């Protein structure tokens, strides 16, 4: 098992290499020229050319790639072409909000969704089941910005409970953090609650027909215990998977939510960098997120064996 974990952690290297090459090629395919963004509307072609030259964008691709990898190996993520600030610092600043909100979202989603899904499966085809279903469908199909706007309208503007926008790091106090992060997390939660609740329901239904559920009842276990201790763990693997991939998605940054709530997160950074063709930032971002994904996926995989001992690697 320890060996497995080690192998998986080492596997980060080829994954990142794959990602690096892929992203590099992808950027090559994408039209766009950071020089043009920097120079603005009135720049002359000659001026653009000089800027390109100065930024090293005229070198052949493999030279750029090699020098970038060289830089990486020295632990240097480079500097933004657009703002000339070090990429590492930029990402570090932006990672905090995204991670914190992702975590809060997942916590809230799981806390809400699992009981909802369990209830829906237990009361299969009852009013509760259909209510969970309806809520889930809305969670899927209402655009996040609508949810966000409505929450802001109600909780910020009407009731004044939460600020309209902005982010306070956890270092400024948990209260301040939650005060700012609650609405955006709640907005995202609606999607994930929907997904996780449905997934929970689907898998619980499968499990509730099993013999060991009858055994648990024969022991005199109350329904709650039957559902949560006996059934849920057996249904856990696919549920964990959606939670895990959901979390992975969230730490990649969620542009719309970050925009609506004006959160300086990774999502906006990535989109801005892509739209500005800020290559070093895009490359570093994707490398970083892929690293995080490998990590999150490793944790999901390990959790499988924890929840279902029959699964072995």
């Amino acid at each position, binding site marked *: 098992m320890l060996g497995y974990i080690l192998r998986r952690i080492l596997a980060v290297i080829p994954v990142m290499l794959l990602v690096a090459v892929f992203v590099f090629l992808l950027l090559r395919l994408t*039209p766009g020229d950071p020089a043009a963004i*920097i*120079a603005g509307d009135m720049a002359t072609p000659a001026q653009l050319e*000089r800027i390109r030259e100065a930024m090293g964008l005229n070198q052949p691709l493999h030279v750029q790639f090699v020098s970038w990898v060289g830089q990486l190996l020295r632990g240097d993520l480079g500097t933004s072409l*657009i703002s000339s600030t070090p990429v590492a610092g930029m990402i570090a600043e932006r990672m905090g909000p995204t991670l914190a909100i992702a975590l809060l979202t997942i916590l809230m989603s799981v806390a809400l969704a699992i009981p909802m899904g369990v209830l829906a499966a237990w009361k299969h085809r009852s009013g509760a089941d259909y209510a969970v279903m309806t809520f889930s469908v809305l969670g899927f199909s209402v655009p996040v910005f609508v949810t966000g706007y409505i929450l*802001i309208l109600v909780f910020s503007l009407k009731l004044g409970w939460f600020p*309209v926008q902005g982010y306070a790091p956890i270092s400024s106090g948990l209260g301040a953090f939650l005060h700012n992060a609650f609405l955006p997390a709640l907005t995202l939660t609606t999607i994930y609650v929907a997904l996780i609740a449905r997934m929970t329901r689907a898998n619980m239904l499968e499990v509730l027909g099993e013999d060991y559920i009858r055994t648990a009842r024969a022991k005199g276990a109350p329904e709650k215990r039957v559902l949560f201790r006996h059934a849920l763990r057996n249904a856990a693997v696919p549920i964990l998977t959606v939670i895990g991939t959901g979390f992975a998605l969230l730490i990649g940054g969620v542009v719309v939510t970050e*925009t609506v709530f004006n959160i300086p997160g990774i999502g906006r950074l990535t989109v801005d960098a892509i*739209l500005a*063709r800020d290559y070093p930032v895009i490359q570093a971002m994707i490398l970083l997120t892929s690293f995080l994904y490998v990590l999150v996926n490793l944790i999901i995989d390990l959790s499988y064996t924890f929840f279902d001992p029959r699964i072995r690697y």
Partner: protein
Amino acid sequence: AWAEKTVTAVMHSGLRVLDPVMTTAHITRDHAYMIYDVLIAQDSDFQPQPQMADWEISEDGKTYVFTLRDGLTFHDGEPVTATDAVASLKRWAENDAGGQVIMDRTESLEATDDKTIAWVLSEPFVPMLNVLSKQSALPPFIMPARVAETPADEAITDYTGSGPFRFVEEEFQPGVSVTYEKYDDYVPRDEPADWMAGGKHVNVDKVKWVNMPDIQTAVNALLGGEIDYIEQLQVDLLPLLEGDPNVTVEVREPTGMQTMTRLNFLHPPFDDPKIRQAALAAISQESVLAAMIGNPEYYQICGAVLGCGTPLGSETDASTLTEGGGMEKAKALLEEAGYDGTPVLLMAPTDLVALATQPVVVSQMLREAGFNVDMQQMDWQTLVTRRAGQAVPAEGGWNMFITNWMVPEISNPISNPMLNGRGDDAWFGWPTDETIEQLKADYIAAEDEAGQKEVSEEIQTHAIDNVLLVPLGQYSLPQARRNVITGMIESPVPVFWNIEKAE
């Protein structure tokens, strides 16, 4: 108790590039006005006024001597010297089109002592002060010589300024927020502030610019009292602010922006002047502006190439544009030109709100006239890259795109990029147009304002006839501020000196 006064402002975009010589991006220019000062500046009559320096012109109009005023220091405490100014001007002139024109005529530019700068031209150049004092695109900002020595195509990394605010580097988050502190040792001029000229008195401790890509968020934040100011408000959202007695919505400066279409002269169908004219005839400004802005209070139908409300603007020959379009005329012109259905590749950027609607409306009107329009949507980055290429449209080129200018940027025939007819050296679209070049030479040669105005009239007629651009009208996006903010200067560039914030 002493409380820090911070003005939190939502600007029209996020600040990313910090070098005002590298880019013409407005947000960088706005940033530069915060932390740098300029030698001379324009007042509300577009007249150059002394700012860091006053000037003397020799009789023959060839020698300009600028004298720095006393008490000027950089944010590191060092005094501003003529050497700094010269280095800054030279770096600026490498990138600025106007600067290049002056440099072409420059014999020498040097610091004669700590306070004086002597600029000697080889021939007189009447618009010299206008160019040096221009408030937009690339104004010549004064930075320390060590910073100005950075090659013009490399971004500066030292942000020591000379202006009324100091850049707080630690709090800078590119594209997200930027903070400025009052620079206590800045010595304002005594004259009252007037546009970019006059005394820049700072009455708050900090100014924080935050970027909110979602304008509704900004509106909500303003309503919630979390921010003080929104630079550009979408007109459609005005009703949301109307009921709030703490908020004022106003047009800060009336000249505003010009939106316009540029055609590609190199490739069919727009290599044919008749077809260009047909395109112009098909377009109704009213439709474009209504879709874009909505409320007519905030837009102005204007057929003037050089802008309405400017000294030289004229609307001659633009009646189809301003009077609802000449669809019949357009159809007739197309017929006459024998338009064969060659597709018109209209590049439409989608990620910039200010440019997203016009292409949709324009392409509908062109289609109605009989054009075969291929509207391709792309992000702005792709557009700016693509528009720089001269390839045929089918192979990655283009026929037409739309962009916006600040009216002061295009109000002068020399600086208006559309009025460059030098083929490959011209602005994207590359018209080869000797007439317009001749007209501009006439304009430079004109002795007085009346003469300039006369030439401008001809420029207008010619630009419209040859469709160097299709003006789509003017608009001003209103700003919104909480009423605690007062004393804002009505200049095209939003500036934060002179502003007061009530407790």
